[in-house]
């Protein structure tokens, strides 16, 4: 709020990495804008990428909730993503062997419900044990879910996947017919490079709207949850579970809540993906998805939701950006290069910035309580990074509410 009210103050309050990320992001957006106007980047494809970035952001939020805050090692991101995706697809797709034709809201509920049950079933035997056991169990779960999807044709259509998935807004008043009712537009800002905004563009716009709603609601929920006594207990468990137990915290219950919450967010990403891509197959559950999400969280900064958001966008940029390498007649296959780039990125981040690009900056204290206490809510030393300005006395502006 205060960032909107006092943008100059908020800018002055930025740490060096925050300012750097802001600068790079603005430059990147300008580049995309130019690419859009020149026709080098299709407007509909751009919106698809935005949707994909939102999906990765959601997955990163989910893992951040588990690993970044509670220290739970979950290697089954792809499994929960797949459960959400298949749950939604099986309920709504024309080709669904067991159901199909239901309203996408039903698919959403089914996807989340199955993810909830699965998370609880995995959590019950593993969350009382050391973190390693959850890691091992989650690895197994990821493979089990992938193999079930691949082999149980009566349930999932096997390797053929599920087609004929409707848009999420199918059956909704107004929005279901919105793409058809919108007029086709032709923009020509750069002479000779017209940009067409037709039905696919408006359909993609709805997807962006959907992912913004999902990601926005998730971000706000997590922000409130993490800057609270609940979030503090999770962070304590991550640092020292015995301490939390000694102070009267039922760590098993907190870990279960964190694990289930993160898994639901991952499933939500899967539901969105189903209605974005309009097809799901076993390939969507490949372990590489889990790998990408882990990279996003580590890159952004464990425990930081805006870091997870940033990491998700970077991953999509690398993943999709490398597709165009062949356009420049680079004599190599971009797919391995993509993994190479991500590997190099992780090595560089681990070497020079192990805490991630945008680590948490704010204390996990309910915001109004900090405001009332009259002390700053963002320390200026140690693990809390120093600000751009010379304000080191701890009495600087509280800054915006736009980070955690």
């Amino acid at each position, binding site marked *: 709020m205060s960032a909107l009210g006092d943008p100059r103050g908020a800018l002055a309050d930025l740490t060096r990495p925050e300012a750097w990320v802001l600068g790079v992001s603005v430059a990147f957006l300008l580049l995309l804008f130019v690419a859009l106007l020149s026709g080098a980047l299709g407007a509909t494809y751009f919106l698809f990428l935005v949707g994909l970035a939102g999906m990765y952001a959601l997955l990163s939020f989910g893992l951040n909730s588990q690993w970044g805050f509670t220290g739970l090692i979950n290697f089954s991101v792809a499994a929960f993503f797949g459960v959400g995706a298949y749950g939604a697809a099986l309920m709504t797709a024309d080709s669904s062997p067991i159901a199909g034709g239901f309203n996408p809201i039903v698919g959403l509920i089914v996807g989340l419900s199955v993810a909830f049950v699965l998370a609880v079933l995995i959590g019950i035997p593993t969350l009382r044990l050391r973190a390693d056991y959850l890691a091992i169990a989650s690895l197994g779960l990821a493979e089990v879910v992938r193999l079930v999807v691949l082999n149980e044709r009566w349930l999932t259509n096997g390797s053929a996947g599920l087609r004929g998935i409707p848009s999420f807004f199918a059956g909704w008043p107004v929005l279901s017919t919105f793409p058809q009712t919108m007029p086709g537009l032709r923009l020509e800002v750069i002479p000779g490079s017209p940009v067409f905004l037709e039905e696919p563009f408006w359909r993609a716009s709805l997807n962006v709207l959907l992912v913004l709603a999902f990601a926005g609601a998730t971000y706000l*929920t997590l922000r*409130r*949850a993490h800057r*609270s*006594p*609940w979030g*503090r*207990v999770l*962070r*304590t468990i*991550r*640092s*020292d579970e*015995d*301490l*939390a*137990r*000694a*102070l*009267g*915290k*039922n*760590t098993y219950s907190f870990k279960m*809540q964190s694990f289930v*919450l993160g898994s639901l967010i991952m499933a939500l990403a899967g539901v969105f993906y189903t209605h974005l891509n309009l097809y799901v197959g076993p390939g969507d559950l490949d372990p590489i998805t889990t790998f990408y999400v882990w990279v996003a969280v580590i890159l952004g900064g464990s*425990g930081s939701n805006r870091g997870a958001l940033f990491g998700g966008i970077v991953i999509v940029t690398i993943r999709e950006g490398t597709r165009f390498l062949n356009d420049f007649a680079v004599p190599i296959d971009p797919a391995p290069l993509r993994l190479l780039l991500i590997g190099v990125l992780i090595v560089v981040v681990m070497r020079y910035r192990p805490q991630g690009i945008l*680590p*948490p900056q704010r*204390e*996990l*204290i*309910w915001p*109004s*309580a*900090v405001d*009332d*206490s009259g*002390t*700053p809510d963002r*320390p200026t*030393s*140690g*693990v*809390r990074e120093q600000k751009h300005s010379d304000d080191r006395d*701890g009495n600087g502006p509280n800054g915006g509410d736009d980070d955690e």
Partner: protein
Amino acid sequence: MSDSANATTNATTGRTGSDEPDEPDESDAAGSPQIGAVAGKDDAVLRVDDLQKSFGGLTATDHATFEVERGTITGLIGPNGAGKSTLFNLISGFYDPDGGTVTVNGTDVTGMEPYEVAEHGLIRTFQTPRKLEGMTVREAMLVGPRNQPGESFLSLFTSPGTVADSESANLADAERILAEFEIDHLATQPATDISGGQMKLVELARAMLAEPEVLLLDEPVAGVNPTLAKKLKTQIRRLNEQGTTFVLIEHDMEFVMDLADPIIVLDQGSVLTEGTPEGVRSDDRVIEAYLGGGA
């Protein structure tokens, strides 16, 4: 071993017998709830009865029995390997005993999870200060209060006003206690950046936010410089005068003898003896346990 066993029995039975030290002044005992009618001290807030724990062939706790009277500072001493920390782990629920019982405030907490034991008013600290990565000192302090409304995920969305009020009150308490401990200047420092001695103070301060009836301190001044150790001693004494019962493990004999009364001596997992600092200091069995049979 047989000597130890005999001594245990003596210490156990002696609690109601003639060689029991003088009872300390129970100025705050009147307002405390009366515990169950178990033979022993009238106002025992913690009872350990015939506690046993073995790790493979090693007996770490061997039929340990003692009671801690409300309002006292009880020292738990013994040579290395005597089983002091194991005993703390058994009492606080971190280990499940092989036999025996632990009673806190009249409730049998044997086999309970540590958080359940804490809910009955028994809080502990650890030998090595637990630094909370990524947290400031005051955040670390705010983990202390028990049963905060904001620890319920649903409450964060259904009753944010209650959460805010509780958080404000807890923050005010945390800042007050930090000021009382003279470490309020550290409030917004990262908990990982302060010294080990300061962290011990923070741990004690944080434990007080949990409003314990019994606080187990595991080597509170280990590795702490003399100035901070003195400050810790002052704070423990002050908090004890306000009604908190302390049980502390400590190797610094000067510290423990000056602060604690009574003192329980452990040797090879058993209670060797129990008494006043003077009585323990002059007990030949204690000297032998510390210095070996040749002394």
